[in-house]
């Protein structure tokens, strides 16, 4: 269905990524934000609360992130599209209830404007080091969807994608933005509501007495209901069966949890639908010798390196991740068989690089261009890595790290190479 024109602030703006996220969420129909202030995400909540009255959305500043995520889950059960906005430290605090949301198959969105870490880190500067955490952060098995915008424009558009995916798959969806994109002010075009497709909540439509909470449709997702409609919901975080009833100790011991609980579906509904969920942007992959795999702000920095490398005569392709999770395993596998190697620049010490390596099955070299955070890569380092992969004769078994210019100047070339072994 189309977006509600009252929720869409159609127009051309000059705003930052944080504000664009807020506008995107509102356009998607989000009517509830519970949050706790954390740099560098605060502008998003501020933008949301200023617009909330005119669209009938409610904002509550909770006492902490733990309360924020709990309130989001509650509001979702009351029937609202709900979200919270945070950064690294708050993301960590929310992990337990992200697991609850995943286990209960609640549709909700979390915006993580990533910053320097670990711990308090560098609050006012960028990072991309929460990527693995977005998938594996909470205990137990479950799958999430994570998106990575590279600009305020994408911040707006991907929020709509995020809410749509959350409703379609009843899972946590994370917008893994970062301080650079969040605080970058750029032109954002918000189209008319008639050009925005939003996914309505998949409500159960059958007779009340036949309602089985986790009975799945063909895409492995169950229609949902809301509190107050007389379904006598039984919502519980304990591992449960189709009716939502917890599995007893005895049953867990004697029977196959895959068959009697919803656990298997928490991962399958994403893994089996991965082809519909995964989105990447490819450029000149065919005939490439080297492919740069990047996401978020780093993909914009990589563009410059790629341009230069191409004019240096190297056939460079680019694979930009729109969805980081689920990861495009098959595509990487296909490409690995045909290229010399991958270059993975990321603002961390290696997260997606290891996924690329895993999916390459030893068919291609993977060189990580790490970055400790706070700023973005120097395109020269990405360029250097592209050259290295293009000229590398040896096949490495594991991910190799590119020795960046900074390290060279600090340690000197030989010392840095020794450190890499």
């Amino acid at each position: 269905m189309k977006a509600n024109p009252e929720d869409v602030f159609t127009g051309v703006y000059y705003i930052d990524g944080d504000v664009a996220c807020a506008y995107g969420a509102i356009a998607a129909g989000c009517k509830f934000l519970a949050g706790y202030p954390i740099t560098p995400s605060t502008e998003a909540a501020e933008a949301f609360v200023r617009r909330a009255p005119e669209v009938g959305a409610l904002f509550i500043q909770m006492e902490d992130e733990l309360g924020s995520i709990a309130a989001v889950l509650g509001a979702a059960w009351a029937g609202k599209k709900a979200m919270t906005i945070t950064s690294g430290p708050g993301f960590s605090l929310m992990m337990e209830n992200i697991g609850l949301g995943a286990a209960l198959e609640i549709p909700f969105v979390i915006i993580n404007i990533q910053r320097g870490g670990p711990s308090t880190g560098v609050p006012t500067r960028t990072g991309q080091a929460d990527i693995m955490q977005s998938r594996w952060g909470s205990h137990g098995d479950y799958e999430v969807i994570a998106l990575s915008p590279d600009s305020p424009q994408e911040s707006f558009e991907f929020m709509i994608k995020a809410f749509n995916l959350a409703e379609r798959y009843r899972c946590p969806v994370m917008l893994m933005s970062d301080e650079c994109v969040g605080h970058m002010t750029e032109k954002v075009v918000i189209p008319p509501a008639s050009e925005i497709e939003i996914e309505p909540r998949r409500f159960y439509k059958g007779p009340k007495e036949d309602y089985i909470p986790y009975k799945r449709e063909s895409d492995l997702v169950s229609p949902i209901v809301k509190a107050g409609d007389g379904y006598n919901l039984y919502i519980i975080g304990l591992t449960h069966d189709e009716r939502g009833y917890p599995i007893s100790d005895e049953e867990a011991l004697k029977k196959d949890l895959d068959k009697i609980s919803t656990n298997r579906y928490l991962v399958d509904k994403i893994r089996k639908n991965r082809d519909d969920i995964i989105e990447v942007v490819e450029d000149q992959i065919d005939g490439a010798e080297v492919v740069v795999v990047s996401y978020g702000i780093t993909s914009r920095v990589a563009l410059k390196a790629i341009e230069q490398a191409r004019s240096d005569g190297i056939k460079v392709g680019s694979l930009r991740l729109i969805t980081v999770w689920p990861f495009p395993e098959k595509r990487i596998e296909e490409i690995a068989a045909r290229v010399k190697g991958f270059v993975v620049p990321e603002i961390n010490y290696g997260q997606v690089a290891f996924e690329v390596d895993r999916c390459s099955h030893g068919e291609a070299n993977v060189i990580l261009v790490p970055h400790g955070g706070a700023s973005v890569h120097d395109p020269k380092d990405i360029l250097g890595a592209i050259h290295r992969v293009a000229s590398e004769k040896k096949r490495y078994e594991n991910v190799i790290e590119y020795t960046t210019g900074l390290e060279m100047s600090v340690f000197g070339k030989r010392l840095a190479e020794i450190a890499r072994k």
Partner: protein
Amino acid sequence: MEASKTLTIEKEQRHPMDELLRMDRIPHIWCPGCGIGAAVSAFAAALEKLEFDLDKVCVVSGIGCTGRVAGYIKLDSFHTTHGRAIPFATGIKLGNPDLKVVVFSGDGDLVSIGGNHFIHAARRNIDMVVICVNNFIYAMTGGQVAPTTPIPAYTTTSPFGNFEPPSNIPRLAEAAGAVYVARWTALHLRRLTESIVEAFQRPGFSVVEVISPCSMYYSRINKLGEGIDMLRFYHDNAIIRHGEPTENLDIDYQKQIIIGRFVDRERPTFMDSYRKWLSGAESISKEKVDEKN
């Protein structure tokens, strides 16, 4: 001559409370002598008196023995994570203000790990009823010391006697801003029922504390007998003092317990304040120019 009476047992005996219970989950997990079941009965009786549209009542509980309540009550029930029942309930209430939300959880869940949320929901005066069953211990995990454990009670993690001063829940609730605060015991069911009714009738954050025996851990470890012995203790030592200043409501080990209705006041609820603010809030019209502050 009187015909001998034979006792006929009907195939399926129904109890008035059956409508409100998930009978397929009964028998429940609570120990013989536990007071939680009694609190649930009082709650059921209160709902009957209030004649609410039960479709619109939501029960939210956390983790613990009392946290299990959500699983046995046939309403929209939410068994959430430890300490987070109140913010979850806040989300439900703000997501749909027409719903009546009751948080039914234990002392550890509500004022220990959940303490921060308890304080702020009371401060905001979110319209909900909080029934806090206080058994002075973390029972579900095997009887560890809790913030409500009196000095010098024994628990598994205070094997030489607890030395930490315990929380005074009514005082905390009042100080944080609750509009209705009462304390009863698992013995005083009729009055507990009345209090739950009153709590629902008061707009805002209402807290009803229920002092309960824990026959498996608290009273067993401290050699205080079983549930019935604790009830006898409450009978002999609980004294009703309505309006007692909450600073006098500390619970000392095996001493007098003051019960009654202590706070009953009016404050604007969160939704009242929000709606008032909303009507005065400036609505920013859409502008096609620079939106940044």
